[in-house]
């Protein structure tokens, strides 16, 4: 049973970590993240880096869709803008990679503001279709602005470098991506302790009431698009340094669906939801490979026979989670926390 949790100040009430177990667990997580690369092989390091990129992007989409209530199916296209920005800056100017990532975020934020303009007139599915339209326009630009994007062949970029050392291994990239993603997640968590974040939530809950309260819909909706796109741009930039080849086909429309599914499965409107959703969507298909590996001695040619089953199981898991926990994986974590808070008085 958790006791002595009464808050004596607004500051304490708004703190990110309010209980000792929370602080302990966060410390364990931080220690794990620091120690992990020394124990993981290339495969798991690759997945860790990829999860970090997807967490950054899913968190951005959660700000827009989960917290502000603006449905977007353009996240992959925004990531592509960030990836192309990084590739062009890296190839043409050779500017430092951190500056390139910030520039990628800034350029994508500007694009996001433009794409967000329809949100002032339309909501829900209509806005989703508008963002799909924007994705098609951006794809057309990637294919046809050949002087900048090299058309269908795309751009191959040199690795990011730090103090003259090229960051080519996943071990090196881990130390770039994970801290950046951690900062971005922390920034998102803090955003909702501010006036701006609360305005986003007000717009999501009832936009007309929010406007009556003095919240400028024009200002805050576009701000939400900008912030979300900034996240997508930085994630796309990290993606570019990770895969080092950016083509118009690198960010298909299905990737936008992936992020939307991630925040729905993880939990809309919670920071933890974006993280858990991205981890789930990235890791589960990979972990299912091991199930196939286990069955290999039992079933001849298991990999060929079970690969389609893997896809079906992944889909079924998503449906299952939505059926049994509509609020997402984050709610399961909250329930577990509540159980320990109240134990032994409730099971």
């Amino acid at each position, binding site marked *: 049973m958790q006791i002595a949790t009464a808050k004596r100040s607004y500051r304490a009430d708004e703190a990110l970590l309010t209980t000792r177990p929370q602080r302990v667990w966060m410390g364990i997580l931080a220690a794990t993240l620091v120690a992990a690369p020394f124990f993981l092989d*290339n495969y798991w390091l690759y997945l860790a880096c990829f999860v970090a990129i997807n967490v950054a992007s899913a968190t951005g989409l959660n700000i827009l869709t989960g917290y502000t209530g603006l449905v977007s199916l353009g996240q992959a296209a925004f990531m592509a803008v960030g990836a192309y920005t990084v590739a062009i800056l890296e190839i043409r100017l050779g500017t430092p990679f951190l500056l390139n990532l910030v520039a990628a975020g800034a350029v994508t934020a500007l694009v996001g503001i433009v794409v967000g303009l329809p949100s002032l007139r339309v909501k829900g599915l209509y806005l989703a279709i508008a963002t799909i339209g924007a994705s098609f326009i951006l794809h057309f630009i990637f294919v046809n602005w050949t002087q900048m994007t090299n058309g*269908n062949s795309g751009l191959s970029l040199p690795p990011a470098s730090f103090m003259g050392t090229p960051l080519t291994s996943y071990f090196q990239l881990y130390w770039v991506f994970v801290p950046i993603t951690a900062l971005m997640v922390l920034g998102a968590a803090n955003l909702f302790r501010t006036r701006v974040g609360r305005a986003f939530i007000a717009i999501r809950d009832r936009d007309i009431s929010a406007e009556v309260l003095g919240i400028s819909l024009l200002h805050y909706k576009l701000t939400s698009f900008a912030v979300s796109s900034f996240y997508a741009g930085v994630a796309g930039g990290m993606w570019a340094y990770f895969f080092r080849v950016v083509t118009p086909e*690198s960010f298909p429309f299905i990737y936008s669906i992936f992020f939307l599914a991630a925040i729905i499965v993880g939990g809309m409107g919670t920071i933890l939801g974006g993280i858990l959703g991205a981890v789930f969507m990235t890791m589960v298909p*990979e972990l299912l490979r091991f199930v196939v590996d286990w069955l290999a001695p039992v079933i001849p040619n298991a*990999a060929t026979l079970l690969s389609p089953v893997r896809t079906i199981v992944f889909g079924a898991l998503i449906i299952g989670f939505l059926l049994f926990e509509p609020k997402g994986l984050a709610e399961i974590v909250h329930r577990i926390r509540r159980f320990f808070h109240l134990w032994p008085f409730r099971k």
Partner: protein
Amino acid sequence: MLGLKTGLTRRTLVAMSAAGLLTAALPVQASDDIVIGGSIPLTGVFAFAGVGIEAGIQDYLKILNEAGGIDGRKVRLEFEDTGYKVDASVAAFNKITSQHDVHLYYGDSTGFAKTINPELNRMGTILMAGASFATELNNPDAFPNQFMAGPDYSEMIAILLEYIAQEKPGAKIVLVNSDTEFGRDPIPATREKAKALGLEIVEEIITPPTAVDVSTEVLKLRRARPDYTIFHGYILAPLPEFMTQAKQLGLETKFMGTFWSMDSSIWAQVGEAADGFMGVMPYRYYYDDAADAPMLAKIREMRPEYQPTPYIQGFLTAMLFTEAAKRTLEAGKELNGPNLKAALNSIENFDTGGIIGTPISIPGNSIPVGRIYRYDATAKQMVPASDWINLKE
């Protein structure tokens, strides 16, 4: 109600699953086997090819291992499904190379080949080939540890143009390409080659890869009145629609395609409209019973049912992989990327057992050899329309 429970609890199950996952994640013990790794698309849009490729590789390895393997060492394929997605292909690559001592690798796409190339060069331990025939990959300087088991896309079209130049000098040609990296790949080289051969490209049509309504494009064909229309960047759709509408308009143009559009089983579904479709194929077909193709007879013995062209491609790739490994070991050298590539490049006038109907050499990253085939809708087979054309001759 507190009480002790016996048997499997949910917690025990979770713990067992976690332990199992961790165990599975541990590297597999190395053996004396030579391992070919593979990022192969067994699901997704390219699954039809992936299934055939995997079967082709496995069958060749079976033949090889039954004959004693390489220097007494067995060769085996360790592969993962990619769904034809680059990130999954890279994940599979990392998983397989973390678990096994891999020196040969089969990749599934141009995107993957380009993405993994810096890592291949950094590792320097692996020779890679795959399902991509992208022109960009046919560059030994930029892709020193890769090759393709056939001509690149530009070379495929060049083989078609050589045939056209012989059949109808000065012919008028229309190019139809999908609006993808795959589709646009050979266009610049095609323009140059056509010019060199005195052929006239009268129209270039780009369609979305998933084009359904092609009536506007067919009208362009009618205006251009080409002798030949060359498609590239498609598997099947929208080719049958093009051909049907063109026939209805009474156009005389001959339709042609490249490797991925040339499997006879996909045209068998189209029926009569497919009759006369032509294209370039670097390999013989499963049903080719030429006397100088004992390997195809062996394949038919192993698999009585038709095997598609990706199967043949996988089979030949495995043959070339293992030939490179054999030559490397025979020379007393270590199995690594540069040694394997040098061994591959030493292949000269090599007999593929009739898979390719002419002896092959691989001085660079491709095998610029092919033959023109024509689809016979009655026999439901591709029949040879030319002899083997070697661009290096």
